[in-house]
């Protein structure tokens, strides 16, 4: 495989944006500037970006409670996201959604979802639209290892096979559903295999390897565009932070996170690979780091400065007409 510099630069930029965005979100949360429950995506960037680099704005994704990375990878504006996460006017959803309910239909981002397992049935619907309207677009649902135990996900897998829907199920196995180990909660110990048993091809990959994710998704997306139906993918990833920001994570082994951050950082992995192969230089990547830092700074500053929503917003947008 060879990749164009533009492709590589864009992929890196997006992954880095997610990383710095999440680190800033954590900081702002800890400073009391972000209300509610927030689940950070840092550590899993290679999955969101490896998947979404295969997609156009007309393809759609369905996300989870841990959705910031998916949003950014799908092209959502980070300033609008930061405002949303802070509950401010001008947020992508006017501040009414918050971290767990960011959507941007114009970008094909069908929504984060605070209900575990809520997304895959909806993505079947987007895939059904694509199939019925003949657009050749595809849908990708993201789910966690924990989410893979929800009945809604099982139903969605089966329906996707029955209707041969252009739907790629991406399971991000970060080893935990909150403070419960995937090895405990997934009885079969095998998310992809269990999903594949519904009657679709399945594959596992190292989710910190951007290229592995990208290639596996490419195949699945092409298959879907050809009208050959769904695929189940499982990416082995790591959760760098708590389940939610503020989680004391007592259930994790001492030193686990430190070691994961040292050994299993997808951004480090990416940099090593692309510089090692001679595809990009460190200088090119550093330049991106700088511009992303500035972008995230701007997002945070604008988020903090943004006004609160007008109280009248409480009553709008319940219906289109009533």
């Amino acid at each position, binding site marked *: 495989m060879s990749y164009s510099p533009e492709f590589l630069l864009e992929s890196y930029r997006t992954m880095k944006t997610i990383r710095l965005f999440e680190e800033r979100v954590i900081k702002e949360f800890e400073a009391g500037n972000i209300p509610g429950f927030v689940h950070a995506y840092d550590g899993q960037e290679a999955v969101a970006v490896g998947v979404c680099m295969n997609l156009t704005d007309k393809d759609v994704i369905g996300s989870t409670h841990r959705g910031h990375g998916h949003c950014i990878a799908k092209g959502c504006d980070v300033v609008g996201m930061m405002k949303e996460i802070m509950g401010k006017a001008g947020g992508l*959803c006017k501040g*009414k959604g918050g971290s767990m309910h960011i*959507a941007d239909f114009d970008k094909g981002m069908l929504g984060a979802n605070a209900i575990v397992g*809520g997304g*895959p049935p*909806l993505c*079947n*619907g987007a895939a059904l639209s694509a199939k019925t309207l003949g657009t050749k677009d595809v849908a990708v649902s993201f789910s966690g290892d924990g989410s893979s135990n929800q009945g*809604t996900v099982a139903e969605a897998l*089966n329906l996707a096979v029955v209707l041969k829907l252009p739907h790629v199920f991406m399971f991000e196995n970060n080893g935990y559903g909150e403070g419960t180990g995937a090895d405990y909660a997934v009885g079969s110990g095998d998310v992809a295999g269990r999903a594949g048993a519904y009657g679709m091809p399945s594959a596992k990959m190292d989710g910190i390897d951007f290229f592995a994710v990208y290639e596996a998704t490419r195949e699945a997306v092409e298959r879907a565009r050809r009208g050959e139906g769904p695929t189940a993918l499982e990416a082995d990833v790591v959760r760098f932070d708590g389940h939610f920001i503020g989680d004391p994570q007592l259930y994790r082994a001492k030193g686990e996170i430190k070691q994961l951050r040292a050994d299993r950082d997808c951004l480090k992995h990416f940099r090593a690979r692309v510089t090692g192969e001679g595809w990009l230089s460190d200088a090119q990547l550093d330049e991106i780091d700088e511009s992303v830092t500035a972008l995230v700074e701007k997002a945070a500053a604008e988020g903090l400065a943004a006004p609160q929503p007008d109280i009248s917003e409480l009553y709008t947008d319940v219906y289109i007409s009533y």
Partner: protein
Amino acid sequence: MNNPQQVVTPPQSGTSSIKTMREAINEALHQEMERDPTVIVMGEEVSGGAGCQGQDDAYGGVFGLTKGLMPKFGRERVIDTPISESAIIGAAAGAANTGLRPVAELMFFDFIGVCFDQIFNQAAKFRYMFGGKARTPMVIRGTVGAGLRAGAQHSSMLHPVVVHTPGLKVVIPSNAYDAKGLLIAAIRDDDPVIFLEHKLLYDTKCEVPDEPYVIPFGEAAFTREGSDATIVAIGAMVPRANAVADKLAQEGIHVDVIDPRTLAPLDDEAIIESVEVSGRLVIVDEAHERCSLAADISSIVAEKAFHALRAPIRKVTAPHTPVPFSPVLEDAYMPSEDRIEQAVRDVLGA
């Protein structure tokens, strides 16, 4: 009951004929699928025969509501599904977000139990949560109510659960004419609409125009008129209320019978106006009494027409029990004409 539409004027031009509610709903589906290629129908057995060696369209819905659609529009637009209601409703909602207008069937509305999240937490909330950007033009059709000896898990009303939920519109027609116009309105509506069909009404008939027409949401129908008392009734309770009204009319007691037709939005003004005149209200609701639509309407009227009320509002509801199987018990479970009549006499006597 002979003519439940006596107060509603049918469209003035075009042909019409006597149709059952089943036929009227089926016709609405045909006409909307014809008119708009983005309308699809999905659910269990909406055609029937998928993966079988006999006839297609074997059922056309277990109650025959979607009969003939598959032969005409094909399996791509009339989609038989596995028995997976969360997947059905989720697919409908996601499809509605992305360019289709799905009409999903819940064979029995009791099955919301296995897909309630996709209804109340997903479809109903998208528009609000996403800051006004989502459009979810979908209809969920389902059979409600007791009377067919279908037992506790296939006979519920459950409209209070969906009326309670912001973001959902809730429709329950009481006759074939309304059913057609309301279903067409539901399909054209840009919000999620719950369309509840009472089992006992499928074979009831009235004059129904052949052309498509729309009955706007939020406009109650007066199926009987009179100033002595007001009866509000919904679904299968409307013909019963009408029968009581007709009987009382022979004694010179004249009552308004109001069929809200849509429960969300609710035409509370029509009800209040009627009560302002009559001062007496009976609400007939086949749901269990606690947190019911009867309670809802009672509380609205008690607040907004307080000074007009000349007697306590009477609710005639199902008891706080599951629906029993035994026919004698099920008949006692449902609000009967006798109980409605007694309630009207009570409010008149007070």
